[in-house]
């Protein structure tokens, strides 16, 4: 094994990419674009839900409920004087919820506290809800519950929220690690696959195998090249994440990069072993959706794995990005060291070992028995 030969392969791969400006631009733009697109469209924050608010009691207490609702970014509150048929507001006028506080709400509320439990009627808020979109319905329920909790001194329950990671973790904060993994996996797998298939088509493969180059050196050359590219892409994701979405990184950036590079190595292995199944570039393209779709849908990137039907969940655990997500989130959001998230860490290591081993066997095969 010679370092010089490993670097000559890495240098060649990078020079090839450098000459193909379209691919180069795409490689740098993809992480930025993915972060922006996914970041904006899946930020998880629902806004502009139209809510009608009818206050028939008009006291300080009901006023504070309205204030609390209005301070919630999710709602666009319209205060109405009265309502005859709440359903008409939903079906006819496009409201998604109608909140009505009936007359005597305040007095019932205080009476309930004064008299003690179970003896008297409670103050009741009427909620009429369009449940055709469950996520919006849930947002309204949660917003209203928050407002009721907020009733201040003497409110029914107080929840004291402690931030485990020192800061409040938003959706986007735990999304950035997933984007890093996805982009790196995609580029490393797809470009390795294409590059090796192209070597077979053009015949450079034969020339390489009669030279003193070893299989291990060949793979390591690709690993070095795509490891570097993964590093640059991760930097782009983080830069966009920090500049545009103000993402918070609790953990060590260095560990995050180590993990991303590990994942890139596994992806190079995956691309190499897929190359054995394709003889032409158009055959190779068939594999792209096979790599992309499960990663996006099953890895717990967009929604938690707990949200995936039990029957499909085992599939999640054969998608490499699942482990990368766990690992990178642990490192970047929770601020742990990689080994403190054993499932993710071991999963990624097994992915690397397995793909590199199989890739190496596959290269022996395609090198020696190409008809």
């Amino acid at each position, binding site marked *: 094994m*010679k370092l010089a030969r490993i670097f*000559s392969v890495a240098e060649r791969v990078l020079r*090839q990419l450098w*000459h193909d400006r379209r691919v180069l631009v795409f490689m740098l733009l993809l992480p930025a674009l993915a972060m922006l697109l996914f970041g904006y469209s899946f930020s998880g924050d629902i806004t502009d839900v139209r809510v009608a608010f009818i206050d028939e009691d008009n006291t300080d207490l009901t006023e504070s409920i309205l204030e609390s609702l209005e301070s919630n970014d999710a709602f666009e509150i319209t205060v109405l004087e009265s309502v005859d048929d709440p359903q008409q507001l939903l079906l006819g006028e496009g409201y998604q919820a109608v909140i009505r506080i009936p007359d005597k709400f305040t007095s019932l509320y205080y009476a309930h506290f004064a008299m003690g439990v179970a003896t008297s009627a409670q103050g009741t808020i009427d909620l009429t809800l369009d449940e055709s979109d469950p996520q919006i319905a849930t947002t309204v329920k949660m917003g209203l519950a928050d407002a009721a909790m907020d009733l201040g001194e003497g409110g029914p329950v107080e929840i004291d929220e402690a931030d485990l990671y020192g800061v409040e973790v938003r959706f986007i904060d735990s999304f950035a690690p997933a984007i890093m993994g996805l982009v790196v996996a995609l580029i490393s797998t797809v470009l390795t696959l294409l590059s090796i298939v192209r070597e077979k088509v*053009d*015949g*450079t493969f034969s020339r390489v195998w*009669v*030279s003193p*180059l070893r299989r291990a050196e060949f793979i390591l050359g690709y690993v070095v090249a795509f490891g570097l590219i993964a590093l640059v892409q991760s930097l782009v994701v983080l830069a966009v994440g920090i500049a545009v979405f103000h993402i918070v990184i609790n953990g060590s950036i260095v560990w995050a990069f180590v993990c991303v590079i590990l994942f890139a190595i596994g992806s190079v292995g995956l691309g190499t072993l897929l190359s054995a199944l394709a003889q032409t570039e158009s055959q190779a393209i068939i594999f792209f959706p096979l790599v992309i779709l499960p990663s996006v849908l099953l890895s717990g990137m967009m929604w938690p794995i707990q949200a995936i039907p039990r029957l499909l969940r085992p599939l999640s655990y054969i998608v490499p990005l699942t482990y990368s997500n766990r690992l990178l989130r642990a490192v970047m959001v929770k601020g742990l060291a990689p080994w403190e998230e054993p499932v993710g860490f071991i999963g990624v290591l097994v992915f690397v070992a397995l793909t590199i081993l199989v890739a190496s066997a596959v290269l022996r095969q395609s090198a020696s028995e190409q008809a």
Partner: protein
Amino acid sequence: MVDRTAVFQAEGLVKTFGDLRAVDHLNLFISTGEIYGLVGPSGAGKTTLIRLLCGLATPTDGEARLLGARMPTDRRDVEDRFGYMPQERAVYRDLTVAENLLFFGRLYAMSRSRIKERTSELLELMRLPRQANQLTSSLSGGEKQRLSLACALLHQPDALLLDEPTIGLDPALRREFWDHFHELNQRGQTILLSTHYLHEAEWCGRVGLIQRGQLVAEGTPDELRHAAARQSGLERPDMEQVFLILTGAGVAGGVS
């Protein structure tokens, strides 16, 4: 038996792909300093034979030896002593001409400065000096082929295996390639090349006529011509006729 003076050697060599016998009990002995042409139609087994000799394929039976080393098992012993030009042009489209040479040179542990020297020598020889920094994909077919030959010559190997090096070239350029081969041969390189242009056999030191994986006739161009003349009664058969007569396909004119 290994003969030290054999550069390319095959003994009872067989290679099958499924039901197809690409190489069928073939014996070959090419010594130092020869320029040997494997001549035969497409699909005769020329490419498979060359791939067996340079260790890219494993024999089904028999032995293939290159510079005394058994291929592919002992190919590491001779890996930097031979040059190979595959039938596909086998250069990186998305590298420049000089970068292609740089990459292959580095694989053979040549220093960057040595590669630079050799690059300007070879590009001069192949009449490509102005194309050094051009992307290979922008070259013409003939230019790519010249670059491909340069890649095989870069590390100054003792033995050269050239698979259809002149395929697709115009006659003038083909002649020029042959001048290169003779010049290299005179400088001491042993050359095994294949061609399906029958008249190119004329320019080889020794010729092997290959058909359906078997060597059907072997000798200098003159020897082959005499044998064909004896068999057919033709006064002075050309190489195409020689091939048809010696492979038993009939006299030229009878078979297209």
